[in-house]
């Protein structure tokens, strides 16, 4: 039996043509004659376009200096891009006409947003794992010293309070007892609503006695907190963080942007502009259009004929007209129909227009998700004794929304890019500021640089959104794994 091997011979390595770089090339770029020819065509296109572009954008570009002379002969290289133009205008492009000394307020609000939303995305929304809990604690607490160094003690302590609140509130929530069970759903809901309205007015009154300005914002924060406390009792800190992000954060951000209290100078919305305005439009548009869209989708599938008719009417009306005409209506026609002297803020008009417009699109995306849920799921929820909203919250919407993330992302990206249409009502968003920069007679003729920059800026925003949505999709794909 000596011909039977007792020791296993070592496996031969795969042939060099199948492994490593060569293998990868053979498999991916040269696997067939068609693939090979496409590879060469692709290479040729790259060789043809890339070197001139890189030469213009990087190697021959003009980076130094602060006037147009730096980009034209004899000082500069007219064959290269003039990034000096973007550099000199950078403040304007980012913040618009927002006063220079107050621009830190915008930075602060966005830093707070990153510190509070970032870990949520990192940890995966509402994931119960402990490791994630730690990320939720650590990342925001890292932001506080940064804010302290950049913006001083006052803003830092506000940031600390806001970032630590979710953890504290979730602990507090678990300790506080239940409301008396005998009151039932409606009794409880009305008690919560009444309490939060009371808290709102208490906040307004307190702010008025202290004479700080921004009464409405303070009242809203108080009202939200009182509303959330019983509603979210026993929720995880991640849930609290999300809830605060959607309710309290906008109040804080608004207070910092507009000012007019707590020693912050009032900055009217006419001065908002640039990338800041684009982000405000996109952010508010996205967060407002999503819930309205979900409600519209539910309304369209409702059994109540009036609600259904209203929702269908709204959706079809809005989808039947282009956004540009909606914006045009609110900017040109609406003021004519209002009584003399009433002026609705231009930015508010644009925000309402964009949000309602995209809510209609969102509604149809969400409706697609609702229709994809098998009838059995609805029936199962009913069989368990769930009422309408409870079955939606626990059974239907989590599944339906997960299914339509790609569709929602599409709509969100569309919204982010369509914010540039506010140019028709002359809001100075990023593109508007760029266009006005192009008309500066000291800087005429840098169209290419301007549009390349705008393209890059929008690409960063949109790529960010699309990567975030992919992350979210992966995280939430519990059932389909």
């Amino acid at each position, binding site marked *: 039996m000596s011909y039977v091997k007792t020791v296993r011979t070592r496996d031969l390595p795969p042939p060099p043509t199948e492994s490593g770089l060569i293998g990868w090339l053979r498999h991916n770029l040269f696997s067939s004659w068609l693939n090979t020819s496409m590879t060469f065509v692709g290479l040729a296109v790259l060789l043809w376009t890339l070197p001139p572009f890189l030469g213009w954008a990087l190697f021959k570009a003009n980076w130094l200096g602060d006037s147009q002379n730096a980009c034209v002969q004899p000082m500069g290289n007219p064959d290269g891009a003039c990034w000096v133009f973007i550099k*000199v*205008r950078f*403040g*304007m492009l980012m913040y*618009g*006409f927002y006063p*220079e000394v107050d621009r830190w307020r915008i930075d602060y609000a966005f830093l707070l947003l990153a510190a509070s939303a970032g870990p949520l995305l990192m940890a995966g929304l509402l994931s119960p794992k402990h490791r994630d809990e730690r990320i939720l604690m650590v990342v925001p607490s890292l932001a506080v010293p940064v804010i302290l160094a950049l913006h001083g003690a006052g803003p830092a302590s506000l940031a600390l309070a806001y970032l630590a609140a979710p953890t504290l509130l979730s602990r507090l929530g678990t300790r506080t007892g239940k409301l008396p069970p005998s009151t039932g759903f409606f009794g409880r809901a009305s008690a919560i609503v009444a309490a939060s309205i009371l808290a709102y007015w208490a906040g307004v009154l307190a702010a008025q006695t202290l004479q700080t300005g921004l009464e409405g914002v303070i009242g809203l924060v108080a009202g939200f907190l009182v509303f959330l406390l019983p509603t979210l009792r026993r929720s995880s800190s991640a849930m609290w963080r999300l809830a605060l992000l959607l309710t309290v954060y906008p109040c804080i951000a608004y207070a910092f942007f507009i000012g007019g209290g707590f020693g912050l100078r009032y900055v009217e919305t*006419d001065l908002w502009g640039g990338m800041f305005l684009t982000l405000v439009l996109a952010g508010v548009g996205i967060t407002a259009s999503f819930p309205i869209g979900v409600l519209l989708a539910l309304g369209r599938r409702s059994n109540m004929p009036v609600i259904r008719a209203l929702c269908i009417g709204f959706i079809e009306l809005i989808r039947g007209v282009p956004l540009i005409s909606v914006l*045009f209506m609110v*900017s*040109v026609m609406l*003021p*004519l*129909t*209002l*009584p*003399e*002297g009433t*002026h609705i803020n231009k930015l508010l008009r644009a925000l309402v227009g964009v949000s309602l417009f995209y809510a209609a699109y969102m509604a149809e995306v969400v409706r697609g998700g609702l229709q994809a849920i098998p009838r059995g799921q609805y029936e199962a929820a009913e069989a368990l004794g769930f009422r309408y909203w409870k079955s939606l919250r626990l059974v239907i919407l989590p599944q339906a929304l997960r299914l339509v993330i790609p569709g929602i992302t599409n709509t969100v990206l569309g919204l982010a890019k369509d914010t540039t249409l506010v140019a*028709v*009502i*002359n809001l*100075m968003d990023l593109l*508007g500021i760029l*266009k*006005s*920069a*192009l*008309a*500066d*007679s*000291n800087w*005429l*003729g840098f*169209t290419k640089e301007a549009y390349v920059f705008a393209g890059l800026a929008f690409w960063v925003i949109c790529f960010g959104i699309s990567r975030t949505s992919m992350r979210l999709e992966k995280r939430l794909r519990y059932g389909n794994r």
Partner: protein
Amino acid sequence: MRRKTWICAILAVFLCASGAVAGMLDTVKQRGVVVAGVSGKVPGFSVPDDKGVWRGLDVDFCRALAAAIFNDAEKVKFVPVTTKERFTALQTGEIDVLSRNTTWTFERDVQQGLDFAGILFFDGQGFMVNKKLGVNSAKQLDGASICIQTGTTTEKNVSDYFAANNMKFKPVVFESADESTVIYDSGRCDVYTTDTSGLAARRVTLSKPEDHIILPEVISKEPLGPAVRQGDNQWADIVRWTLFALINAEELGVTSKNVDEMLKSNNPEIKQLLGVEGNYGEQFGLTKDWAYRIVKQVGNYGEIFDRNVGPNTALKLNRGQNALWTRGGLIYAPPIR
């Protein structure tokens, strides 16, 4: 019956909306700033610079207005308005004055409920060609291809002009001025046409500006000027005479530099302009020294012109039609007396 009621209701709303409120000056004074509608995208007329400070001819006119009212040329809030919403903005009182290189036409003056205060800049459509073509008059442009923007009156003006002179042309039409400039620069059309002030601004952006000339013919009348809402004569007078004060100051040789010395001048016209004699400013709700404030803080018409569009700026516009009437131009203002 019901329909009639509805129509009446809607009409009533519109009538209310277009009705005027008296005492614009008081409103403005109470508010503390003049709200001015500007373009924000026309080189030399109204553009924010890299610090966000507004610059331009239209802008400086609004500053002069603020100087006259508040003695502070910076008390102006500039609101960029589009070509389409500019009249609505004025009619609804969103802006107090429209200073947005707007052409004074019959239709706008009569139908749109505007009052034009005067002419700040005489513009007109012209042609730019490459020197290579050897053309020195628009009459030689028969058969040329012309880069034009869509949806503007420029297209109609060109075809009218060519038809009147029995010539043919090939339109090359584009959506934006940027686009058509690039195309003209690449040589795909022989001629570029737009208002002469625009031609000057566009010429700077070409790869070899010195190779291109602007032909002498001006084929349309585009008198640009500030406008106010109809129905408040006091306010319209203030805007109108702010413009006239700028022009008179140049005519009398009063500049922002010598205005203080000019206070001692013996010339009665200068005395009346600067408020040394008479109470002209008080007659429309301002102070005696209203014109002094204007010249001191903003300068006279010539200074404003030179600062924003003149030969030392990138636009390099000559005074041309916009020279004073005493120097062969069209700029003329009634006297203050």
